């Protein structure tokens, strides 16, 4: 699924989106719905998948779940920042874990949403991130 070096984005106006969550079902359905709304979505089912994906390709926005099995979302966030990526990062947090979200913001994330979130909220947030 995750595309390698060849990036189909050069003359594509679509927003290049990276979805990172260890819940495959969630990633898949969200990807479907966003594709249908004209986003170019790349799926990553774990932190390491995500890191592999950003090495081969550029993205405009990443949607990052903070609670994952293999690697903590904040860890992934730190690695992205160390790699000097320019893409905006929107975090998804569980209810009541505002501390992690706040920490993510100080680490340079764009914003956060509490999960589960309404689709139109997410789309709005992504568009905000692109405009910024």
């Amino acid at each position, binding site marked *: 699924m995750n595309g390698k070096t060849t990036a189909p984005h050069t003359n594509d106006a679509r927003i290049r989106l990276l979805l990172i969550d260890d*819940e495959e*079902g*969630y990633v898949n*359905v*969200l990807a*479907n*719905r966003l594709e*249908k709304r004209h986003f170019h979505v790349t799926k990553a089912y774990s932190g390491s998948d995500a890191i592999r994906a950003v090495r081969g390709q550029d993205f405009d926005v990443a949607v990052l779940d903070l*609670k994952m099995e293999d690697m903590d979302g904040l860890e992934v966030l730190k690695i992205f920042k160390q790699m000097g990526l320019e893409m905006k990062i929107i975090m998804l947090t*569980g*209810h*009541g874990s*505002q501390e992690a979200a706040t920490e993510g913001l100080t680490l340079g994330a764009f914003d956060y949403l509490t*999960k*589960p*979130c309404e*689709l139109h909220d997410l789309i709005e947030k992504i568009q905000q991130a692109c405009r910024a």
Partner: protein
Amino acid sequence: MIKDKYSKYYRSLSWNLILTAIAVSFTPLIMVIGVLLYQFNVSYQEKTQAHLSELVQKHAQNIDTFLTEKLANLRQTSVNNSIESLSNSEVLREKLQNLRSEYSNVFVDLGVVDDRGMQLAYAGPYELKNVTYADADWFKAALQLDMYISDVFTGLRGHPHFIVAVKKHESGRNILLRATIDFKAFNSLVQNLKIGKTGYAYILNRKGEFQTSPPLEYKASPTGYEFFWNAVAKTKNTFIITQRKDESGTENLYAVASLKDGQWLLIVKQQVKDAFSDLNRMQNIAVIIFIIGGIAILMMVYYTTRRMVRRIRRADKEKEFMNQQVIETGKMASIGELAAGIAHEINNPVAIMVEEAGWIGDLLEEEEFAQSSNLEEFNRALKQINTQGRRCKEITHKLLSFARKTDSTVKDVQLNEIITEIVGISSQMAKYNKVTIEMNLQPTLPYITISPSEMQQVLLNLINNALDAMEKTGGTIQISTKISEIEPGHIVIIIQDDGPGIPEANLARVFDPFFTTKPVGKGTGLGLSICYGIINKMGGKIDVQSASGQGARFRIWIPVQK
């Protein structure tokens, strides 16, 4: 049942303490009193006996001296004068005069008796000239000796007296110079001897006859006098001290000394009770001290033990209460953690379901489905899935806020302000339910340091519960605050409704997590348990009083920091 078991334990504890304290304090008391009393007893008895024996010895000596003196006087008279001159009554009268003037009337009369018993001459108050003494015991005895003192006897004159006689030998002829000793004068030597209240003295001869005027209780010889003679003979002592019963059965102390070359006994007799009266008084004092001291100790022991046990009991109760609180808090915390875990786990599948439904909705918008007769029904079902998903989300949110408080920053707040604010928020809802909220807030409450948002959550929960309870009936909610009288240093908030109340069976469980009586889908059963957790964390207390049909009354105590 539990209370019974405990009070039994405390009763046996107090008995242990009381008995130990009594044993510890009585043992030395008894020992001290006993040892002192014994020592006093021994030394006092020794002293009394020593005193008594000294007295009897001295008097025996005095009496002996008296007798030998009288004998010596008589002997002098007999030596200095010839039989002839003595036989002359005139001369004899002169001699008697001399003796009487010199020895204060101790000599009653004088007589000269020849060896056949005929009284040759007599001087004295009686008409006894030419009387014959040939058959008199004293005469027979005196004839054998140079000097003789008789026992007391009544004789010819009819009242007690005794005779002192001296034998004079001159030109082959024996005569006796005889004098009668005034019994009163002699008796006074003994009668003056008084000891204590019951002590007196008397003299007995070998036959047990009184040689002095007998004491009142004796008419004839005292029985058992042989005992004294035997005792004196056995010890070879001139005196003994002994303690024995007399005829009337009372214990007496006897001091005995032999007199007149072992012919008489001087006996001093005193009742033991009298002799040792000081000892008895001492014993009585000791007993009184013991009783008073004992009562004081008993009262002290009882009082202090009761106080001590009461204090231990209170401490135990406090400890138990603390333990229970710790357990309760621990239970709440672990439930909270569990709930948070579950909420997180449920969040993801719910999110997926909702999104999948959304995806179906997306697909249904495509043209190929636009003609479907069931399209509307599909959309309705999807909407329903979405709604239920949102409900799940609400539940998990509540669970999570039970586990961790959203904003637990504390600050100094005025409780009445928070209440007024919350009542304001709820008023719309209250109006809708036909419920009036009355406030009765004490205006001068001190500031308390709590998290205002937590307090709001608690109040909102309680008011919402009351509103829900009175949904159909309408009614009144009364909210009051004041300084607690039951719990010093606390503010108490009372929220009282007049709704249907809480059945007794549910009262104990209302603060348990997931306990709810609301219809399925309306309540999570977490509201009150969140309140409980919050108030507990504030160091306060929450309780509920209710009965079916009488409304519910929640009381919250919040400590005031000093």
